[in-house]
């Protein structure tokens, strides 16, 4: 078993699962029925990607592992998602803001993963890239709409952007696992993504009439399993039924 590959797979899968889980909280509570449907669609895309990736993580670990075992029987420190994805949704503007910051990153990441030397990751990227491109377009359009909408929407979304800024650093900062995967031709080059991400973010923020936050301190740790307090609650809610009936099939 390749430890770095497993962790890299879990990072991708956990990002998709935790974001899908958070977005699913909106279902039935969106600001307008059409957008309730749109956000549920996006949640469904992420959950579908999560299944493919966690299934791959299960395969790598061998007999007795399944996608559900990987999803429902790991604790907080064994999760490898980005911290920004486990934060609470906040209002619609904050959810849109988080989507935009992450979707933009995810778009460049999956574009690069189309070239991955790992066959499964490459095929997941091929299946997911269309969805992910749509997510990035949708959240950019909404950010522009809210940034350039009313005074209230502008103020709200600018404040969400400021709050979320410190959580954007870790997606663009490589660690040892990212380096090893890049070297193996499996993973993406985060330094190159960082440049493209800033370019795109600048361009959309200008259209949205929003100011790019200037804060330089960046939080990190999610990728390595060092999480905020929020993830424990996400997992408690998500995992409690299968953990209560460990022998059961669903």
């Amino acid at each position, binding site marked *: 078993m390749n430890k770095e590959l497993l962790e890299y797979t879990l990072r991708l899968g956990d990002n998709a699962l935790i974001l899908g889980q958070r977005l699913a*909280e909106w279902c*039935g509570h*969106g*600001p307008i*029925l059409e957008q309730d449907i749109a956000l549920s669609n996006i949640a*469904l895309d992420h959950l*579908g990607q999560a*299944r493919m990736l966690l299934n791959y993580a299960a395969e790598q670990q061998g007999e007795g592992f399944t996608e559900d075992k990987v999803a429902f029987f790991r604790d907080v420190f064994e999760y490898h998602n980005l911290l920004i994805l486990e934060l609470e949704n906040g209002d619609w503007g904050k959810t849109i803001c988080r989507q935009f910051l992450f979707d933009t990153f995810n778009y460049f990441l999956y574009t690069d993963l189309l070239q991955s030397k790992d066959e499964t990751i490459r095929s997941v990227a091929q299946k997911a890239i269309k969805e992910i491109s749509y997510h990035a377009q949708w959240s950019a359009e909404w950010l522009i709409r*809210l940034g350039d909408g009313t005074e209230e929407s502008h103020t709200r979304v600018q404040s969400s952007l400021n709050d979320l800024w410190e959580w954007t650093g870790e997606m663009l900062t490589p660690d040892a696992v990212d380096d090893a995967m890049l070297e193996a031709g499996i993973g993406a080059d985060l330094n190159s993504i960082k440049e493209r991400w800033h370019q795109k973010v600048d361009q959309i923020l200008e259209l949205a009439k929003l100011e790019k936050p200037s804060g330089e301190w960046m939080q990190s740790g999610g990728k390595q399993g060092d999480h905020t307090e929020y993830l424990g609650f996400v997992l408690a809610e998500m995992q409690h*039924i299968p953990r209560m009936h460990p022998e059961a099939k669903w």
Partner: protein
Amino acid sequence: MTKEMNLEDRFQNYVDGENKVEPKDWMPEKYRKTLIRQISQHAHSEVVGMLPEANWITRAPSLRRKIALLAKVQDEAGHGLYLYSAAETLGADRQDLVADLLSGKAKYSSIFNYPTPTWADMGAIGWLVDGAAIANQVMLCRTSYGPYARAMVRICKEESFHQRQGYEITMTLAKGTPAQKKLAQDALNRWWWPSIMMFGPSDDNSPNSAQSMQWKIKRKSNDELRQEFIDKTVPQAEYLGLTIPDPDLKWNEETGHYNYGEIDWEEFYNVIKGNGKCNKQRLEARNKAHDEGAWVREAANAYAEKQAARKKNETHAA
């Protein structure tokens, strides 16, 4: 007056000839009003009906179930949209209809005022509540108002998929561990009577039924539909090894139908009146989503207006 009478007679003849009424056709004002009320109630039921199931999306016990449930609840939002559109073809305004729901003036199906305390409720709702809804909706595919009938054809396809999904959840539980089987039985106990009440009061106590039947909005009586549903569902419960909580339930050789026990209509009217466990919670959730979404809708409108003005300016400049 006479002219109006003539029109009404002609309308009745037209409907009796199994023709579909379309939005621009003349129709009696009461036909229009009945349909707006019925279709909008149906739309509200889809939207409020999202809540008891959305309640379990984050807690679904497997990834496959989580995705299926989320997709199902999303379908219901879609049904709400088709139905609001169908109501708009009759001259109603979606915003007014929604305002009536939020103020408590408009009704929605009372079944959604029951709580979903366990995962097994996701099975029972799909199997029984969607099953009962389908009995009604299959009939509505042939309703006399064209846009409503066509919306129903689409909705029925998705609903029967939902029902199979619900039955499969219940089956997995019924064939699972003793604890799972207990969950399935408990959910059946709680949902059985409310489900068969979904068809509404008996025909002799259903004030609008006769006129709706005459106009072919409705084509079967509440009791007929209820009987169909019971006849279909009892063998399904038997197959699962679950017990329907009605000691009087018995096959009747003579009629070829199941006899069933007396329905507690007091409970039915009590929940309609607002005394169900979740009446307040459901309406509060809808109001909260609406109120907290106000600034988003305003921003989207403001942005659309700005864009339109910019476009106009560009055209002028050119």
